[in-house]
């Protein structure tokens, strides 16, 4: 592998981590979804590049799914859902931006230290992809736990899943990647439809513990 192909792959994967960070500080839903669309575009480019350098044509399918489904259809659908639900003005941060960013930096450091240490002999590209992928997964989890709105939790989950796709394409010659990305797309479609049909706005409408007990049939 020559230097340039490696650098481009590295740039795209690193770009994904950067966009994940951008998600952490978006406090408006529309902005969050736009950043997610960007995330999906960078993923599509990254996967397409992997398909090109590994000469693995089936990965172009995964790239196409990422581009068409995740960068176009889902964001457009979510925009509509937000308007229908009337939550487009909502501002939500369960945890302040500063602590979230610090936590994010900590998670990325953790995944670098962990993945680079356990894979000294692996193919350098796959190794870096794995480290980046774990960072993206952990940042996606962070988005999910710092948000209370169902839509932004879904966005967090989708960014997490992008990290998985990155890891799967980075692992050279891994079978079933396309199938898995299709399976994930179906899963996400289900979630989005679920949000829309059932008008799920927040995990919990209240933080009143008494009301929660009532909710779960544990009322005394």
């Amino acid at each position, binding site marked *: 592998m020559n230097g340039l192909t490696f650098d481009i792959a590295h740039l795209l994967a690193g770009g994904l981590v950067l966009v994940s960070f951008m998600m952490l500080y978006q406090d408006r839903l529309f902005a969050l979804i736009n950043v997610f669309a960007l995330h999906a575009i960078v993923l599509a480019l990254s996967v397409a590049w992997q398909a090109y350098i590994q000469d693995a044509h089936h990965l172009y399918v995964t790239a196409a799914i990422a581009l068409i489904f995740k960068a176009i259809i889902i964001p457009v659908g979510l925009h509509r859902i937000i308007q229908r639900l009337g939550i487009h003005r909502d501002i939500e941060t369960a945890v302040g931006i500063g602590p979230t960013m610090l936590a994010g930096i900590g998670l990325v450091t953790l995944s670098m230290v962990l993945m680079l*240490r*356990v894979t000294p002999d692996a193919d350098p590209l796959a190794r870096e992809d794995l480290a980046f992928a774990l960072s993206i997964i952990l940042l996606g989890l962070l988005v999910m736990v710092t948000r209370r709105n169902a839509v932004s939790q879904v966005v967090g989950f989708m960014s997490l899943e992008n990290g998985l796709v990155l890891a799967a394409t980075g*692992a050279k010659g891994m079978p079933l990647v396309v199938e898995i990305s299709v399976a994930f797309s179906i899963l996400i479609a289900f979630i989005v439809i679920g949000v829309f049909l059932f008008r799920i706005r927040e995990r919990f409408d209240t933080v009143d513990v008494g009301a929660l007990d009532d909710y779960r049939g544990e009322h005394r």
Partner: protein
Amino acid sequence: MTAFSLDAVAAVLLIPVGAAALLATLPNYRITAGLNVAASLLTLLAAVSLLVTDRPQPGQYLLVDDLNIVFIVLNTFVGFTTSVFSASYIAHELDTGRLTAANLRFYHAMYQIMMFGMNLAFVSNNIGLMWVAVELATLTTVLMVGIYRTHEALEAAWKYFILGSVGIALALFGTILVYMAAQPIVGEGTNAMVWTVLIEHAARFDPALLNVAFVFLLLGYGTKVGLAPLHAWLPDAHAEGPTPISAVLSGLLLNVALYAVLRFKLLLAASPDAIAPGPLMITMGLTSLIFAAFMLYRRRDIKRLFAYSSIEHMGIIVFAFGMGGPLANFAGLLHMVMHSLTKSAIFFTVGHIAQIKRTQNIADIRGLTETHPGLGWALVIGVVAIAGLPPLGIFMSEFLVVSSTFARQPLLAMPLVFGILLAFGALLLRLTGVAFGEPRGSTAPAEASYVPMYSHLALVFAAGIYLPPPLVIWFQHVANLLG
């Protein structure tokens, strides 16, 4: 005979798929409920025929060996009895208007797809395929948990969905790491995901990578096993969904995830330099056991009570498999079978009780043995069994777990016994009021199907008295395989 046994594997997978397609199109719910039972019975027969025929050679995708055949037979058996229970349960739900005919079509089709997903997870020889199958089974149960469309049911389904998705995402990352570890040794392509190939070469895999992979897999699939602290979805999903689904969730779906964990544990055990998976599993098992045992005391909802009891028992099972060794594995395997049978029987009973009393609130259910002796005594036997009293089967398996632990790690046995006794107290405390107190609530006659619950309980009782030698030899063999 190879062709025939391959057909049996195909039947275990294809019957549910075909049935699902058929059930989705047929409008009459009486016919579909019957068809659901028939399809489940056929699947069970196909699974049992796997026992007697020669096993097919493991292929790139499918595998039948001594380990998974236990799970498949148990899965299809409980799937069949639950479908019988479901037929009478569903008829009542339709009468009271909680479900519509269209709901039922969807419900029956989903039931068969779920059976397909679980069977596929068991017979898959490919860790990628196994992951897809577990995801499929999860998705269908999510849809069924939310079927009542009440606020609580949707909340439960949503929580299950999000936590389950995060769980399977972590499991997929673990799966990718296993592939990465295998790829330099086995070579690129499908072979590096085939379990039988992996286990053969596991000794030469990079141990550090395997360690990290196992942590992700344990957390990911552990979420689905319901191990504390990843259990938050489990009580809600059990309490708010239809009761047949609670029965298969507790009795079967938890086992599917457990099976996945066991497969990867074997892989790790075959690699000499990797960390021992045992201590991790022991820690998670004990945490779940003790946490759930304490939580049992505060329950007010009867289905939630037994959901926490499932967490407790999965904790014991994971603990036993974590201890390892022939005796503890044997005990874990036996406990898993006994728990599946008993817990699904309890949910069958609770389902009918909740329908008669129109509530799941424990305080409003009293004196069942007087008003509904058939159901009341089934509940008494079930709870006595699940609490671990002799002479029922769970007593025996718990006794084996405890005694094998005492022999090897006496210090670990103390928290184990503490947790079991704690749970025992909570369950009997609740049982006395529900079964023997002053009758309260509706005394409408029960239109229950007693056969599924009593046949399960009879099996558990028989296993507590006498285990047939062929069964013991078979389980011992599997226990040795598990290392």
